[in-house]
Each structure stands twice: as structure tokens, then as C-alpha cells.
């Protein structure tokens, strides 16, 4: 081995603690990058494989009732490959042992089962047999939530008639990967499920002989999606079509793809921080090494090594540390990615999990890390290369401390000498001190941004479910009913208040921009749904015009005073123009509101409602629920408490995983930065510290000189970290913003405190690691040599 390379290995061994700290920070960045990219890729591949194998449809459309012949005309639209007209209905279920009403989507299948589009993955049991109209296949998640298996029975209210159904099989479908119930924000397998039953049974149940109310289709490659959608809408309009939807807007798929986008966001934001800090530390360690090896550098140059050779020699050290980090990160990222993918796979119930990390993720991670650390080290290496041999052989100029250099030394005068030493040291290299503080601050910031999610969730629940939605339950009716139905509900046991609202499918247009959105009709003095402006005061519903959520206004590029074209997708499909009269902020969804009378007016109807908001006495739940299950007009019941619980459960679990990750990575960052800063301080000031020991200072006292500086930088890091945490939260909130959720910018004081305490503990560990070295300072060796 070349002696210089041998020296390199020895340097690396000597600096192993620091090298490992840097490597671990780089590894964290690489791991996050590989993990999220690998999981995103695998998720996409798994979903696509699933979709392909089980023929997930490309277009979805619902209609009130259309004769089968229309389906044949749709099949003739250029670009359409295959169509499957179906019957999809909603029913309330009564499951023994489960008090609350359960909603199910009933989806027709052919009997005997003939797979076409959205094919079922039969997990157990069998498909319904001809002539057995009561046989159904249940969604696996739903069945598991209720411990149902082939042979179990349940009661369903089908078109007002109570029927006993027998589960004969459990299945998955690419259409219901993310099975979300009507009006729900997150999946709730206990209260919403999918049941597939024979077409004949549903035809009979809902009087849809030779007709369909839902159609899915696949397209040929290269088909023009917009023109197909247009054509379908044209064909279905006379039959009460509410607009065809492309796969990308299909709800289940939207959620799956949204998860993938979020993973890409994580890959974009977090590793940048780790790699920047890694680069800074690489620079620091190299600069120090070069300072201590000046004479060796001079010697090398005297021997005839060129500038480039010297620079490369030191760059190799960086490459070695980075390579170690990348390697650890690759392995860690590979496994974390596999784990994360399998978490998703279990959650989404993909029939087959494809873990396909793809070499791109690994290559990108390695390349980005190498570029980052090398650019961090390049300054130091270049300085080494530029040292003229003669100058290099001389010891470095001692750091110059003079009074007039900084009047700010004055303010240290009231301190004891030991404090002055580290304070002046820190002030002598303000940039380095600041960057160290920023590095530790970054750890605090990362933690804050992770813990903030919990605050944000609480805030979302508070704002949405308590401040805006004041009702205990929303009963969605099967169709619209006269307003007087609220009186009927008031007579049910336990109902304290009932209010009629109305939801109408519509498309809002502004020029070429358009958005499908339910128009929500609210009664003027609604007690059970209260909209607020950004100052928190109640908005009164104007008698005419639209009240838009700010996000929807942004998506449609419309402001107060301008008009939107409303294309109602129900009834006689009226198209009207209405002014936007006010905007309001909401964290969930992109709703649009109108006065319920104005909405009814739009449909040329009067006093109609299709959603009854209820305030319930919690002691009478059981009786009320039992009654609701028997009322034919009731389509579905959404309970606020259950919704909140599911929201916490599903979102909370994911967030807990991330908080754990972030805590681990932030601690690595904090320990790495502090440890490196202190080791370098120790290397620079070992001589002074030994001198203090000779002068009669105890180990504890010199440790104060060393750790005092670190403590000072950590203290400085706290406000910096809190600021960075808030900044990071802003960045993450905007990156993670979707049409469905906007993450509110709330960081509770406790979150700042927790993040700070965790990072303080991490830096304390670093302090202890370095402190142990102080006990072994070789006093005599130091005194024998000149620096």
C-alpha cells in the first residue's frame, strides 16, 4: 500500500469517532432518501401491478338509471376497450354485536362470476352461486373488523326491505384499496364496507332490470381521455349522469397516489438538511486535520507532490467517510424502505407486494451525498493544496486575540477566566460557532416539524369537528325529502336537535378552470354547522351567492365579487351563474356553501333536504341507532365521535412512525454535530486544557472550559432551532398540502419544549463521550512538545 494511503487509514482510524458521527449523519440523509424513494417506487409498482392484473378501470361514471343499451353505445366511443355497467347502491347494515349503523356499498357482480374490470381477488370462500340471491362477497378489511368469515350473516336494509345476507367469500378489489365511506375523511372498516352481490339480486332489490346506475370502463392505449369523458357525459346526461371521473380522480386511487406524492416530498426535503450538515462537518474535520498537518503537507510538497495530489489526498478522507455513510444509509434505507412498503402494503392490502427499490434511488443518494460532502471539504482541501511548502513547515500562526480586534471582548470582563476562554474562542470563529449552533438547531427543528404534526392533527380536529361541525351525527338520506322530515327525526329517541341541510353534486367553472364539488346548502341560522372567517368570527350565510373555501377559490382562481358558472350534476342539470360573496378558511376539503333556500331555488325545488344534522343525547345512542337502522330513507349515518377516533387512529399511527424516525435522526444529528464540535475543540485546545491541569485545575473544571462552549452553542441553538422548526413546518405544510387536507401552522409551546429537551439529552450524551477523554489527557506529553 502506498504510504500515503496507509496514513489515510490511520487518520481515519484516529478520527473514527468523528468520522462515524459524520458517516451516520450522511447515512440518515441517505436512508431517508432511499427509504422514501424506494417505498414510493414500490408502492407505485405494487399498485400498478395490482391494477393491471385485476384490470382496474380507467373511467368511472354514475348515473341515476340508464338502460343497458346506453352501455353498448358507450362501448362504441372511440378509444373504449371494455365497459362494465353495474349497479352500485348504498345500504345500511345491522351487524350483531355492533350498535352503530354501518354503511355498505353494494356492488353488482355477474353470477356465476365472470371477471371483467375491477376484478375481485378472492381471499377465502367462493363467489355467489346462481339462484342464491342472498349470497355476498365481503371486503376483507370490513369482514375482519367484524370477525366475519364465509358463513357469517348480516342484516341489510335494501331499498327499505330488511334482508338477511350470507357472506360466502372475502375479497379485495383494486377499486377499494382505500375504502372510504361516504362523507368520511379516513377509512373506517368497522362502519363502512363493500359487499359484492349478484346482479340479479340487486336488480330485483332496486328495480333496475336491464338497467345500470354505475359504469366503469377501460381504454385502449392512446385513447383521448378528455374526449371519452365528454362523450360519456353527453350520453349519460339524460339518465341523470353526474359526470364521469378518470382513474386519477377515483377516490381510492387518489389516496394511494397521494401517499406516493407525500413520500416524494419527504425524499425532497429531509435529506437536504442532513447532507448540508454533513457537508459542514466534513469541512470542519478536514480544516482541523489540515491545520495539524501543516508540516506534513510542507514535507509532501518539498518531496514534489503537486497541489492536486495533496488536495486529492485529503479529499479521499471525505470520500471514505461519505462512502461509509452511504453504505450504512443504503442498507438502512433498503430495510426501512422494505418495512415502510410492507406497512403500506398491509394498510392497503395489496395482494402482492413488489419491493422494487430501484437502483436510481441508491445512485441518487450516493451521488448527492458525495457532491455535498466534497463541496463541503473542497475549501479546506484547496487551502491545503495552496500552502507554499516553506510556509507549511512553520507552525501555524497562533490565533491572534487582541483587545482592539473586537471591543466585544470587553463584555466578557465580568466573567471568570475559564468562561472567558471559551467565550472568546467561540467569538474568534463566529461563523464556525454559528454553523455548529445551526447544526444542533436543525436537529431541534426537525423534531419540532415532526412533533408539530400532533399539534396540527389536534388543531384540525378541533377546528373541523368541534368549531365547524357542531352536530353529533349526519344522517344522509337516500334521496331528497321535504324539510318536514327533520320533525320526524326530532321524534326519534335521544334526538335533541335536527337540522336539514342539502348536498348537491355540481361542477364549478371559471373560464377553463373547473372543479367538481358538492354544493352544500346550509340553513341561515344553522346551529349545527358554523362557518368562520380567518379571525374566527361567524360568517352569516348570505341569502344568495357562493361561500367558497379559500382553497377552492385559489384552485378556481376566483375572488370575492367575481362570478362562477355552476353546472348542477343532478336533476335537470341546470347551469347558472352565481357571485362569490365571501371566502372562508377551512383545513379539510374544498367545500362550497350556499344558503339552502338558494340551492333549492337553483334546482327549482322548495324546502328539500338530503342530509339531516342531529344533536344526540349520548345516553340514548343504542335506542336511536336501532331505530335508524330500520328507516328506509336513511342512506348512511356519520358519527362525529367515531370519525374523530378514526381520524386519530389512522393518521396518528402513521405520524407516530414518522415521529419515531425523526427523533432517531434528529438525535443522530445533534450528537454528531456536538460530538464533532467538541472533538475539534479538544484537538485545538488540548494543550491549553493540559496546561490548566498542570496549573492545578481539576478535570471537572477543564471540562467546564470545553463543555461550556458546547453548552453555549447549544443554548444559542435553541432559539435558532425553534425558528428553523417553524420554518420547516411552513415548508412541510405547503409541500404536504392537498385538496383534502391543509396542515395548520400551530406549534404548541410543549412541542418546542419537547424537541429542545430531546436534543439537549442527545447533546449531553455527546458531552459525556467527550468528557471521558479529558480524564486521559497526557499532561507530560503536551508539555514536552511545542504546538
Amino acid at each position, binding site marked *: 500500500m502506498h504510504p500515503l494511503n496507509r496514513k489515510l487509514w490511520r487518520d481515519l482510524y484516529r478520527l473514527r469517532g468523528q468520522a462515524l458521527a459524520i458517516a451516520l449523519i450522511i447515512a440518515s440523509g441517505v436512508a431517508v432518501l432511499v427509504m422514501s424513494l424506494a417505498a414510493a417506487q414500490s408502492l407505485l409498482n405494487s399498485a400498478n401491478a395490482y391494477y393491471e392484473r385485476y384490470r382496474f378501470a380507467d373511467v368511472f361514471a354514475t348515473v341515476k338509471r340508464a338502460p343497458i343499451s346506453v352501455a353498448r353505445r358507450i362501448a362504441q366511443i372511440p378509444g373504449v376497450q371494455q365497459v362494465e355497467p353495474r349497479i352500485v347502491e348504498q345500504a345500511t347494515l345491522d351487524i350483531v354485536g355492533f350498535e352503530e349503523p354501518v354503511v355498505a356499498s353494494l356492488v353488482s357482480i355477474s353470477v356465476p362470476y365472470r371477471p371483467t374490470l375491477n376484478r375481485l381477488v378472492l381471499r377465502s370462500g367462493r363467489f355467489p352461486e346462481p339462484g342464491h340471491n342472498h349470497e355476498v362477497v365481503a371486503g376483507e378489511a370490513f369482514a375482519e373488523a367484524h370477525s366475519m368469515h364465509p358463513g357469517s350473516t348480516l342484516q341489510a336494509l335494501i331499498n327499505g326491505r330488511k334482508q338477511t345476507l350470507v357472506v360466502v367469500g372475502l375479497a379485495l378489489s383494486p377499486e377499494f384499496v382505500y375504502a372510504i365511506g361516504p362523507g368520511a375523511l379516513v377509512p373506517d372498516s368497522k362502519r363502512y364496507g363493500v359487499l359484492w352481490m349478484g346482479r340479479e339480486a340487486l336488480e330485483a332489490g332496486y328495480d333496475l332490470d336491464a338497467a345500470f346506475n354505475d359504469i366503469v370502463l377501460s381504454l385502449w392505449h392512446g385513447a383521448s381521455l378528455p374526449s371519452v369523458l365528454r362523450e360519456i357525459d353527453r350520453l349519460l346526461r339524460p339518465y341523470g349522469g353526474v359526470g364521469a371521473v378518470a382513474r386519477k380522480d377515483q377516490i381510492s386511487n387518489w389516496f394511494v397516489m397521494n401517499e406516493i406524492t407525500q413520500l416524494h416530498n419527504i425524499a425532497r426535503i429531509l435529506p437536504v438538511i442532513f447532507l448540508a450538515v454533513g457537508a459542514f462537518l466534513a469541512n470542519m474535520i478536514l480544516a482541523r486535520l489540515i491545520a495539524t498537518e501543516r508540516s506534513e503537507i510542507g514535507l509532501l510538497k518539498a518531496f514534489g507532490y503537486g497541489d492536486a495530489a495533496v488536495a486529492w489526498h485529503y479529499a479521499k478522507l471525505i470520500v471514505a467517510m461519505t462512502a461509509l455513510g452511504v453504505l450504512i444509509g443504503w442498507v438502512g434505507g433498503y430495510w426501512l424502505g422494505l418495512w415502510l412498503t410492507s406497512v403500506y402494503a398491509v394498510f392497503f392490502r395489496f395482494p402482492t407486494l413488489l419491493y422494487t427499490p430501484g437502483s436510481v434511488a441508491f445512485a441518487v443518494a450516493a451521488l448527492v451525498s458525495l457532491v455535498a460532502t466534497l463541496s463541503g471539504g473542497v475549501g479546506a482541501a484547496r487551502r491545503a493544496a495552496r500552502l507554499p511548502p516553506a510556509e507549511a513547515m512553520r507552525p501555524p500562526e497562533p*490565533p491572534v486575540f487582541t483587545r482592539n480586534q473586537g471591543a466585544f471582548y470587553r463584555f466578557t470582563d465580568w466573567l471568570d477566566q475559564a468562561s472567558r476562554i471559551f467565550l472568546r474562542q467561540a467569538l474568534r470563529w463566529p461563523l464556525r460557532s454559528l454553523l455548529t449552533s445551526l447544526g444542533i438547531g436543525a436537529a431541534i427543528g426537525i423534531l419540532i416539524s415532526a412533533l408539530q404534526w400532533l399539534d396540527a392533527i389536534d388543531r384540525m380536529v378541533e377546528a373541523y369537528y368541534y368549531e365547524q361541525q357542531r352536530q353529533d351525527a349526519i344522517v344522509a338520506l337516500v334521496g331528497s325529502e321535504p324539510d318536514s322530515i327533520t320533525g320526524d327525526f326530532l321524534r326519534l329517541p335521544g334526538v335533541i336537535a335536527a337540522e336539514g341541510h342539502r348536498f348537491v353534486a355540481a361542477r364549478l367553472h371559471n373560464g377553463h378552470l373547473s372543479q367538481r364539488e358538492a354544493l352544500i346548502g346550509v340553513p341561515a341560522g344553522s346551529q349545527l354547522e358554523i362557518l368562520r372567517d380567518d379571525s374566527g368570527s361567524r360568517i352569516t350565510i348570505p341569502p344568495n351567492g357562493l361561500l367558497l373555501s379559500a382553497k377552492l377559490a385559489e384552485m378556481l382562481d376566483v375572488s370575492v365579487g367575481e362570478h362562477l358558472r355552476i353546472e348542477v350534476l343532478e336533476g335537470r342539470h341546470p347551469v347558472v351563474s352565481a357571485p362569490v360573496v365571501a371566502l372562508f378558511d377551512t383545513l379539510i376539503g374544498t367545500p362550497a356553501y350556499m344558503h339552502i333556500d338558494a340551492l333549492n331555488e337553483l334546482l327549482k325545488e322548495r324546502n328539500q333536504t338530503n342530509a339531516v344534522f342531529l344533536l344526540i343525547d349520548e345516553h340514548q345512542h343504542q335506542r336511536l341507532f336501532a331505530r335508524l337502522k330500520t328507516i328506509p330513507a336513511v342512506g348512511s349515518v356519520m358519527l362525529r365521535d367515531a370519525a374523530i377516533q378514526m381520524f386519530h387512529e389512522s393518521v396518528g399511527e402513521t405520524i407516530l412512525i414518522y415521529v419515531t424516525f425523526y427523533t432517531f435522526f434528529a438525535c443522530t444529528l445533534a450528537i454528531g454535530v456536538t460530538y464533532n464540535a467538541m472533538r475539534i475543540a479538544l484537538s485545538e485546545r488540548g494543550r491549553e486544557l493540559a496546561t490548566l491541569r498542570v496549573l492545578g485545575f481539576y478535570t471537572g473544571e477543564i471540562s467546564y472550559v470545553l463543555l461550556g462552549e458546547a453548552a453555549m452553542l447549544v443554548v444559542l441553538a435553541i432559539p435558532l432551532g425553534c425558528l428553523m422548526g417553524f420554518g420547516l413546518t411552513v415548508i412541510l405544510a405547503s409541500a404536504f398540502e392537498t385538496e383534502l387536507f391543509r396542515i395548520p401552522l400551530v406549534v404548541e409551546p410543549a412541542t418546542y419544549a419537547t424537541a429542545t429537551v430531546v436534543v439537549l439529552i442527545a447533546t449531553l450524551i455527546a458531552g459525556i463521550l467527550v468528557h471521558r477523554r479529558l480524564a486521559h489527557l497526557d499532561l507530560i506529553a503536551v508539555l514536552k512538545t511545542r504546538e
Partner: protein
Amino acid sequence: MVAQTSAPASSAAEHRPTLIGSGLSKTYHAGEVAIHALRQVDITLYEAELVVLLGPSGSGKSTLLNILGGLDTPTAGEVRFRDHALAGASDTELTRYRRDHVGFVFQFYNLIASLTAAENIALVTEIARAPLAPAEALATVGLADRVDAFPAQLSGGEQQRVAIARAIAKQPDILLCDEPTGALDSRTGVLVLEAIAQVNRDLGTTTALITHNATIADMADRVLRFADGRIVDVQENAVRKAPGELSW
């Protein structure tokens, strides 16, 4: 074999021993070979005397001084400071001993770069029991006007005098100097030696000084010559020369 050490003839002091080292040995093991840095050395330093240690490189002078100063521990033998035995003392006890009783001056000045002359001294006086004021200590070594200078703003000789001032500011019982003039030219060296002699005379500090320069031996009460880990010769000077009279 072992040279007898005896009370200084010329000293006016009461011949009370300050520091007694008896049977001091120090052995280093470098693989198979044992290096005997000190072999069974007996030494007594009396109150207020100035002893010069001479000897070739590697003969064990620094090793002895470090053991006497509580920086190092002997492999065998023991050190008594007044009526305290240092044998078996813990690191903390040795630190306390150095803090309370010993002043060190080394060839390399070992000043703290980020502290001014006065602050370097205050570093010690802040933890000492009966210290001189930093300004007073600096005046003793003739640097009264450089109180606020940082080490980088001082010459080598001046830095060494600050180091001496730092060593004596706590009014130590023993002042141990290891080649204090090693890095200085002769004129500057004389200034430094004068400072040491003055401290020894005025404060009555027991002083041991290592040098390679035989001429310097003339300023001592006693001269101990080292060879191969032993004291091989003791010379007592009837008259101490003032450092100003020395030249090399």
C-alpha cells in the same frame, strides 16, 4: 552509589526540608525493553533554596521534576511534601497539591492565547488561597506595563516572564522550572533567570531549575548533576552569582 544530598551551606534559611523524594524510580516499558528513566533517586529540597539540575539529555531530569511536582507518579519510592506523603495520592489529591503548593515554568510557555497577560495570571489566582494580585506578579517580573497584552502581542522572553509570574502569583511553596530559558537567547534568558532568582530571594520560594547550560549553575545554592537516571554529583556553591553576572 547514590549521591548524598545535604543542606545548602550558603542558605540563610533554617534548613527545613520542603520536599523529600526517597528511592524514586521510574521505569517505562517499551515492548520487551525496560527504560529506567530514574533509578533509586533520593533528593531533598530545602526551604528557600535554589537548586539547579544539570545533565545530558535523557538522564531523567524532567521525569524527576514531574514526579516532584505531582504531574507524574514514580514506579517506586515516595515523595513527601512537608508532612504529607504523596505516595498513593489520587489524581484529585495530586491536583490539589499542584494547585496549592507548586508553580511550574516550562520551556514552552503554555500561555492561554485567548487570555491577556493579567488574565493568564488571574486564571491561577482565582483558585489560589493567598495569591498576589496579577498586576503585582507581573511587576515582579518587570512587565507591569504589559498587563493587557495578549500572548501573541508579547515576545518569547516576555511570554516566559508572564509564565513565571503565573507560576509565582499563587505564592507557591515550590517553583519547578524545566528549561525555562531553552527557547530564548542569552539576553532574554538572563531577564527570565533574574525573575526566578528574585522570586526565590524575595518570596523565599524553594526553586528547582533544569538547564542544559552549565553556566547557569552558578546562580544556584546547589547543583545536582544527572546521568543515566541517577544523581551523580552534588555541588554546593558558596556564593550565588546574580543572573546578570552570567553570560553564555
